[in-house]
């Protein structure tokens, strides 16, 4: 399988006043197409910073990130947004659905942005697959945590991205919902052939990925 993502000598430092905190140190990482990777490590080790860099939501202090043979580190915010819009789906620990949009509208948002012909219809098909047929027109406040995360996953995968970034996708869920979400996510990745990079503290969930990366003090161990 060819490489989807390459990180070369990535460093990330945060400046706090006169002090500089080194979050990621000389990270080299290759992710192949259709590969599933879990990123584990202690709190503050740099896991979330790593997927923020991969998603183009932060810029590294130094180093290169190459996505689909295109270096994204030198691109401006809009150009990175364009790549993210078409190729990267992001799942957050706290779901982050738009509060005044219904479940269908939350999913249709990314589809409309990618010029899908019938975004609402596609969104409904997807939500139906995730067992949310009865929740199409519910607002996020009317959904349970598990349902919200299923909508969030549907939103992230709706435009069939090559890469899915998931930050603690089951972190705010109970065991039952965690298992269900994990199953949905991995089933989808397998069916659609997307790559998945997932940050998690949950060892069982981490074990579901083909490759497990451990980060400690900003370095891959």
């Amino acid at each position, binding site marked *: 399988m060819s490489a989807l993502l390459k990180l070369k000598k990535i460093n990330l430092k945060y400046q706090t006043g006169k002090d500089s905190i080194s979050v990621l140190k000389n990270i080299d990482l290759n992710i192949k197409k259709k590969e599933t990777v879990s990123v584990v490590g202690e709190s503050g080790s740099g896991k*979330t910073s790593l*997927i*923020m860099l991969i*998603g183009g*939501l*932060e810029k590294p202090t130094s180093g290169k990130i190459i996505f689909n043979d295109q270096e994204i580190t030198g691109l401006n*915010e*809009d150009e990175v*947004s*364009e790549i*993210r*819009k*078409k190729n990267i789906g*992001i799942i*957050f*620990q*706290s779901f*982050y*659905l*738009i*509060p*005044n949009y219904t479940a269908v*509208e939350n999913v249709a*948002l*990314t589809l*409309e*942005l*990618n*010029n899908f012909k019938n975004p609402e219809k596609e969104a409904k098909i997807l939500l139906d697959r995730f067992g949310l047929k009865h929740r199409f027109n519910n607002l996020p406040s009317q959904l349970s945590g598990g349902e919200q995360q299923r909508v969030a996953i549907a*939103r992230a995968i709706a435009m069939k991205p090559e890469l899915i970034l998931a*930050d603690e996708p089951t972190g705010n869920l109970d065991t039952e919902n965690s298992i269900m979400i994990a199953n949905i996510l991995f089933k989808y990745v397998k069916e659609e052939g997307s790559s998945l990079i997932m940050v998690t503290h949950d060892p069982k969930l981490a074990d579901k990925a083909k490759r497990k990366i451990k980060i400690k003090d900003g370095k891959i161990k």
Partner: protein
Amino acid sequence: MEKLNNPSEFSLIFKYALKDLSRNYHKISSIIVTLFISLFILSAIFTIEDSLKKELNDNAKALLGGDLEIDYNRNQGNLDLVKKVKEFATVSQMIEFSTMLSTTGREKNKSLFTRIKTVDEKYPLYGNVVYEPMGAYERMQKEPNTILINESLSKTLNIKINEIVKVQDQNFTVIGIIKSVPDVSGFVAFGDWALAGKQTLEILKLNGIGSFLNYEYKVKFNDNDKPEEIEKRIEEIFKEDQKVKLRYPENSASGIKRIINNFSQFLSLVSISAMLIAGIGIANTLLSFINQNNMSIAVRKAVGFYSGNIKTLYYLQLFILLFIITVVAYGSSFLIVPIADKYLSDGLGLNVYPVFSLLNFLKIFLVGLLVLVIFSIPTISSIDQVKASNLFRNVFQNLQFYYSKRSVVLSFVLLSILILLFTIGSEQPSYSLGYFAAFFVCLIVFFLLSKLIIFFLKKFKSSSIISLKVSIKNITQTKSITPITVMSLGLGVTLLLTLALVGTNFQREIAKSIPDIAPDYFFVGIQKGEREKFEQGILNMDPNASIEIVPMVSSGIVKINGVDPNTYIKPDNDSYWVIGSERRSSWMENIPEDNPILEGKWWDLSNPDQLQISLDAKVAKDFNIQLGDIFTLNIYGREIEGKVINFREVDYRDLSINFAMLFNPQFAKKNTS
């Protein structure tokens, strides 16, 4: 605002703007209400102004009183020329004068300075006189010693129909009340006035005071005649007559139009000030709204929206909102017109109707848009501060106003356009600019005041009261809303206080100052032979009355140093009135107490045969007159040359008897008797 990539992207953003607005409008209700009130006031001003101007234009002939007006001002004019006009058009003559009108037969009779208009049976050539009771107007034309008074006069002196009033030494029966006359453009529209038949002049023997009567001839063309041709014919007839002024319908009601323009300019400036103050509040509300949507903005960025597109989304929401509010506000302003109509029809006899004007609508929308954009630029620009990465950290910092160089320049340009919009085309552009300058000076003063408050509060060591500590911390924290709150509150209070002060001072000036310094009565046109009788009459009524009697002669400046006086001054100059028409001049032995000499000497007694002129110093300055300059005056039809020998300081506001020109008495007595 950043450019959009393609039309389909714009339609997507437009769709989401509509969706978001329909679901979030209640969160910005204060913006909606503020904008509506501001735009409604502005719409009402524009709509009433426009309706009124349209009414004035539509009724231009009625307002002028004819197709053309021949105005001889203080002269009866050349009746031969007027007679020539009568050969091919209908001419109505009217004479106006001011005099005291008194009640009779009461325990305490009251008098009022009243403008009386005598009209012939052809009056009015256009429009209608509205009066009551029926037939009163016709009676006035036929029966001598009858008069119609207006409602204001009737109310002020509490005069009832069939009551006898005194005008000079003649009794008149009030046979009706006038509601309105059509030709308000030349005649007084407000105040106390009366209508009388043309025979009144003979009854009052007023022809003798010639120069105090205002002569006008209104002309109505025959239906089949071409107005342009008749106008040319009349112009030809009067082309040699220097004393006449021909006025046309398009120039009618210029005084009323000026009042309307001034008043609407004043109200517009007050309303735009209120809008600018409200704009500060709008900016705050919008910032709070965007802060509430902080997470949604971050999510949009995370799924691939450009920052520019999100900003466009918010600008579009404001644009849609503004459009709807403008439509409602402009539409609602039409409801105000019937209220205005009630007052205007009572006062001016004009009926105003709502007139839709696309230009006004666009102007109101543009004003709203400019205010909205100016104040939302720093707010919506703050969207750039929202990072999608916040979604990973679960931390959303409160956004602050964001000023980039580009946004500051854009705000400045838009503000300049807004100011120009209210300045250009206004009646007094310099006043408008001054007003805006004062507004922004106040803005700076209140900004500095807010910094001062923060500085002192930071020094303040608060006690152990937690709520006080937190309050002070909130006020003094970096990027707090204190400056904006102080500025908007300060400007609002300043505006209210200014309006209150203007109103109070105006009333005080009228109610207090003038009666202190002004005479109780002015009497004009007392003939030489009646002087003693008049003085005795006054002293019989009040033995302690102080009477000042001055001689007067009507004189017009024909030339200055041998050339046309119009070459010395422009018509828009404050002192143009001196040559605008014939003026009354006087003569006196001694320097008037309130007219100190600023330059030159009082009369040269050794030269009694030379007309010597004492001139108002301001008039001299405006005309660039030097001591020794020669005026050619027209006095009683004779052209007499006089030498300017001194300049006096004249303050007409003291309401004592003042003259621009005084003559040496030795010469004047000899030549005016």
